[in-house]
């Protein structure tokens, strides 16, 4: 506590936010530029505040636990303080004498055959997002799914998952999920719904179902497709529409323009040496991104002896992405200028297209890129982003064709979606029919169109004109509020269904648990339209596959498919295509490119809550976004130059006026953002998301129009003078310019492989006052993190949260630096403000051999184990926080309040039973997943053998699509981790402190084109 008297309001959470809001703008970008120009060599910086050395930042830096005194509500004098302390000491001593409460054992009545209490079971299924299913294995403890892992045999997963899949268990147990069927607010039984819908359908039967409409999200499920086909057979005039806000209309339209038919394009990054990403964030989102990350990073591995070539990534992008952060060359341009670059490159490659203007400044860059591509014919990829217009996709197809990549690195195949659809048009048609009164029954199977339909497609008002509307959804969301019927949707982990991966591989999804709230699947709701309305989704899916399989050993096929998690060789086959000539492309020119007045607005799905469907998921809301490090909010992102011109600074509230609509949003300055453009993330600003998600951020859908779903020009930004505090984890735990991330170019590395070690002096093993080391005779656990592979996807953070029962703290607490993530992914910038190099660095506990935390703990609550783990003993911890103060890496987290939810019944099912749920007042941190080590050790000991390399896989390692994290026994010189630690690139963080960290890093290597430099 500091001695300053402080007013009461200052101590409350609201006070902290108000104070933050009242801070005057202090970011002086001109000074920052000067400072950067004055630095020599590689200067890394984490945030603009750090560069500007603002008071705020200094204050944050010097107070490791900022605003820690705020726990005191009122000033306490010395006498009262001593009284309180005396009483709490006495009570604390007594509390150790409490008896265990009486607890019950509740065994099964009839124990299922495979269940051994205490041993989890794993079941294969798939989790769909945007219709695309990703294969997973789900851990089940006596019938409760607790943790999702990737399915190592599934081609789109290879054992990895993304953060959405990791967080899906929290959505499953979310107490805010809708739990009952309602009809205009009244609870009704399922039979009443069936009766109502069948009565309505009787009226439709004569007209062939002309008034029946079904609105779904993207469908890849073969069973659902068959059901839709049967529905249309029964009601020939009925219509099926598909819409989801993060649609792939541009990809579909681009393929149609290029090939004259629906074709899916898949990429083989494992064969590509030169890659050009045109506003494509293929490493972070979209179908197949997990596989793409694996293949892409595999081509970037360099080691001491091998002289393997490394791939080279060029990225042209408007809003900074993880893909741009991995790029060897990155060019920030407005979204509308990407087409110009595509045209310039296409022209360079000999494709005759209309030449662009206005790219003179980048002529050298483009010429070098073209030469590089030409030198790698058949081994290069040009990939256009889903947000880029169809023209850019068509140009990419032309260029890949001209380079001979098609059939080698670029595979064209039958589409995975059942009916590839231009979804915006599909929704428009539906709304037109609704408004014309042609729709009598509307079934909305999933999705939330009232919230996420384009602002100029008046879905909400059209909905009121439909006599019978039904919404199937996980939550009673914005759409449910306005529909007559709401049916709770069964979560994918509760459902029988099927789906296809990005390459078409089919998974039959099996439930891990019976629907918690009697949810229904889309199959069951569609069955109501058929003549057998009471069929369960299990029967529907099974019957479909029985008919499709046809063979007489169906039972074997069914069991094997469920066990494996996918049907072998079910990927959609490659297809011979011919690319249409360039002339047809020019006709496609989108209207937005010709009109480039004013600022440009860019819409993107939110990196953590996607299109808004995950808004009520606390893990994802609190996950710092990969580049902005913002939590619980979205912001209007703009480049430093544009902010300077508009005299804006972080947290300023601006009014965005675009296409006749306005929206208020806080500003966040984003180094590397394209100038004269503003990015807004979709999905926030929900009004009926639930207790967690309602009210976070602003609703960017309010500005999004059907014609310009991803970007458009004519944006006007007006400063309002208000401020909105944003909770960023950006400058927490800053490490002040020490060589933390170490980077070299490939050329420098080849000439001088030891560069990383030489950047910081490591004292000798004996130059320390720490007690003598343990001998570590058996296992010695260690971790190596390859910064050259890490793409900053954040999946490890959520995996750690799910595995280790880590609590969510909320925006106010994050703003005070109280977030609890055991593993954080630091983001560093280097170089120029307008186009910096971006680096990610995952930081778990270092498990130092000379651990500074251990020697300062007065109660021995953090001690060293014989295998080198830095153990944290919750039951001993009294909360002095000395360990955290003395930790140079700032990886310890303190439970300032009772952050864990101990009372909500459904969340009790979520916990990993092998990890303690922490209470208030104790310190916690990364344990190297000691529960998994124990499990492996006990298995090995029982079998009388040593633990094998690869047997202990930490949660962060398991989830990583890039295989950037490797864990194992460093005493075993043949283990993967020991081999990585023997690489010349290996270095320890802050090694000069002689902490001897067990977690070490492998330096990042960049592969720039010497022609660009």
């Amino acid at each position, binding site marked *: 506590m500091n001695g300053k008297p402080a007013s009461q309001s200052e101590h409350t959470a609201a006070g902290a936010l108000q104070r933050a809001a009242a801070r005057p703008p202090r970011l002086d970008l001109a000074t920052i530029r000067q400072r950067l120009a004055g630095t020599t060599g590689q200067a890394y910086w984490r945030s603009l505040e750090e560069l500007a050395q603002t008071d705020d930042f200094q204050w944050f830096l010097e107070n490791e636990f900022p605003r820690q005194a705020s726990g005191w509500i009122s000033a306490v004098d010395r006498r009262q303080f001593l009284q309180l302390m005396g009483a709490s000491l006495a009570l604390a*001593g007594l509390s*150790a*004498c409490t*008896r*265990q409460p*009486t*607890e*019950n*054992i*509740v*065994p*099964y*009545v*009839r*124990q299922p055959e495979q269940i*051994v*209490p*205490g*041993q989890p079971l794993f079941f294969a299924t798939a989790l769909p997002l945007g219709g695309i299913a990703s294969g997973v294995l789900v851990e089940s403890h006596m019938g409760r799914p607790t943790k999702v892992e990737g399915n190592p045999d599934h081609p789109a997963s290879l054992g990895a998952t993304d953060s959405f899949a990791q967080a899906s268990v929290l959505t499953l147990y979310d107490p805010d999920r809708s739990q009952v069927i309602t009809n205009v607010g009244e609870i009704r039984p399922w039979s009443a719904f069936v009766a109502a819908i069948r009565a309505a359908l009787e009226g439709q039967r004569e007209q062939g179902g002309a008034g029946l409409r079904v609105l779904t999200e993207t469908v890849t499920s073969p069973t659902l497709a068959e059901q839709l086909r049967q529905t249309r057979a029964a009601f020939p005039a009925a219509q099926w529409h598909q819409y989801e806000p993060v649609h792939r209309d541009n990809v579909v339209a681009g393929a149609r323009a290029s090939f004259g038919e629906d074709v899916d394009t898949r990429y083989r990054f494992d064969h590509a040496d030169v890659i050009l990403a045109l506003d494509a964030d293929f490493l972070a989102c979209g179908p197949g991104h997990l596989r793409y990350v694996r293949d892409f990073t595999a081509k970037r591995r360099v080691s001491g002896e091998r002289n393997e070539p490394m791939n080279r990534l060029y990225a042209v992008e408007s809003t900074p992405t993880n893909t741009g952060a991995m790029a060897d060359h990155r060019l920030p341009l407005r979204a509308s200028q990407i087409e110009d670059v595509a045209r310039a490159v296409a022209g360079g490659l000999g494709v005759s297209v209309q030449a662009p203007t206005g790219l003179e400044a980048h002529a050298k860059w483009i010429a070098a890129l073209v030469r590089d591509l030409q030198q790698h014919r058949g081994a290069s990829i040009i990939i256009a982003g889903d947000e880029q217009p169809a023209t850019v996709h068509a140009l990419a197809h032309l260029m890949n064709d001209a380079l001979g990549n098609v059939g080698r690195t670029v595979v064209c195949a039958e589409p995975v979606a059942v009916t590839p659809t231009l979804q915006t048009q599909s929704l428009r048609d539906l709304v037109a029919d609704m408004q014309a009164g042609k729709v009598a029954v509307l079934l909305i199977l999933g999705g939330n169109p009232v919230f996420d339909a384009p602002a100029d497609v008046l879905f909400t008002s059209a909905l009121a004109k439909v006599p019978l509307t039904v919404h199937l959804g996980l939550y009673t969301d914005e759409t449910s509020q306005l529909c007559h019927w709401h049916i709770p949707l069964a979560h994918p982990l509760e459902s029988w269904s099927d789906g296809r991966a990005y390459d078409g591989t089919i998974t039959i999804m099996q439930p891990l648990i019976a629907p918690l709230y009697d949810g229904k699947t889309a199959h069951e709701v569609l069955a109501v339209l058929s003549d057998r309305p009471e069929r369960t989704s299990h029967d529907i899916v099974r019957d479909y596959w029985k008919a499709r399989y046809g063979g007489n050993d169906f039972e074997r096929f069914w069991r094997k498919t469920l066990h494996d998690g996918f049907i072998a060789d079910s990927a959609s086959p490659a297809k011979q295509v011919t690319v249409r000539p360039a002339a047809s492309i020019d006709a496609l020119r989108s209207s937005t490119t010709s009109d480039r007045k004013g600022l440009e607005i860019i819409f993107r799905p939110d990196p953590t809550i996607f299109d808004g469907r995950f808004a009520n998921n606390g893990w994802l809301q609190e996950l710092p976004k990969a580049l902005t490090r913002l939590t619980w909010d979205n912001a209007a992102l703009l480049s430093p130059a544009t902010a300077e011109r508009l005299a804006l600074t972080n947290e300023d509230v601006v009014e965005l006026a675009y296409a006749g609509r306005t929206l208020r949003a806080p500003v966040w300055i984003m180094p590397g953002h394209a100038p004269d453009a503003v990015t807004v993330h979709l999905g926030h600003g929900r009004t009926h998301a639930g207790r967690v998600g309602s009210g976070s951020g602003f609703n960017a859908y309010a500005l999004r129009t059907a014609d310009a779903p991803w970007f458009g020009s004519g944006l006007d930004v007006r400063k309002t003078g208000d401020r909105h505090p944003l909770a960023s984890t950006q400058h927490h735990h800053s490490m002040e310019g020490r060589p933390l991330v170490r980077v070299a170019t490939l050329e420098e590395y080849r000439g001088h492989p030891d560069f990383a070690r030489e950047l910081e002096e490591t004292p000798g093993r004996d130059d320390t006052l720490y007690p003598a080391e343990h001998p570590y*005779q*058996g296992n010695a656990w260690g971790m190596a993190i390859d910064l050259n592979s890490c793409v900053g996807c954040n999946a490890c953070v959520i995996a750690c949260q799910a595995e280790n029962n880590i609590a969510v703290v909320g925006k106010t607490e994050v703003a005070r630096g109280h977030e609890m993530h055991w593993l954080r992914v630091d983001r560093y910038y280097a170089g120029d403000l307008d186009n910096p190099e971006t680096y990610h660095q995952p930081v778990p506990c270092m498990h130092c051999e000379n651990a500074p935390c251990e020697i300062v703990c007065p109660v021995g609550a953090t*001690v060293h*184990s*014989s*295998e080198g*783990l830095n*153990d944290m*003993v*919750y*039951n001993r911890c009294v909360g002095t926080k000395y360990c955290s103060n003395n930790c140079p890496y700032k990886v310890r987290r303190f439970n300032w309040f009772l952050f864990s939810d101990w009372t909500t019944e459904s969340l009790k099912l979520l916990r990993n039973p*092998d*990890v*303690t*749920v922490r209470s208030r007042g104790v310190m916690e941190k990364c*344990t190297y997943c*000691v*529960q998994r*080590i*124990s499990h492996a050790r*006990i298995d090995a*000991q*029982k079998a*009388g053998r040593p633990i094998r390399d690869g047997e202990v896989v930490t949660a962060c390692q398991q989830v990583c699509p890039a295989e950037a994290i490797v864990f194992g026994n460093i005493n075993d010189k043949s283990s993967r981790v020991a081999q990585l630690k023997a690489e010349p690139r290996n270095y320890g963080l802050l090694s000069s402190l002689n902490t001897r960290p067990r977690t070490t890093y492998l330096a990042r290597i960049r592969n720039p084109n010497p022609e660009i430099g």
Partner: protein
Amino acid sequence: MPQVFHPSTNTFSRVSIFGAVFFIGAMLWGLALINRSSYVTRAGVAREQPVPFSHRHHAGQLGIDCRYCHTSVERSSYAGVPPTKTCMNCHSQIWIDSPTLEPVRASFRTNRSIQWIKVHDLPDFVYFNHSIHVNKGVGCVSCHGRIDLMNLTWQENSLQMEWCLNCHRHPEQYLRPREQVFNMTWTPPTDQTTLGRELLQQYDVRGTHLTDCSTCHR
């Protein structure tokens, strides 16, 4: 002015000052006693159960093996409390009208579990694993006592950390050959320490690891 206090008050005050030291000491000693007493640990207290199941009758007199009911003791952290089905294997044939067994039959009929009272209840921050102990030669009796002589089951030992550490620090004094683990009547040989050391070698029990905090707490 006369003296307010009589000179003997000095003696009183000296006695009470020194006495306070002893008093505080006695208080602490008392607290330690209470903390180790069966009131807190519940050691030695037979617990009422919904059905008065007798290990003495089943395991002792009838000689049913431990693993007939506690099926996962060699494989899992939990030894496993038998499902009602296991009881009914016999009790659908014998004692079928016994009123004492009505809760068992009711459970089987209604498919609702019997709610047994937990006798051995470790705190939630302790992760005990039966299988590794059984596989390394820790006998059932070593922790649970002569369960074959108990009518209603009680907890034999305190299950406090100091008690656990007795063995984790000196496992050679408690280990027995694996084949004797489920034997209730095995008595250690006179040179247990020699046998224990041999078994440590044979079963690859590593001394250093046994006292790591993370072995039990995580």
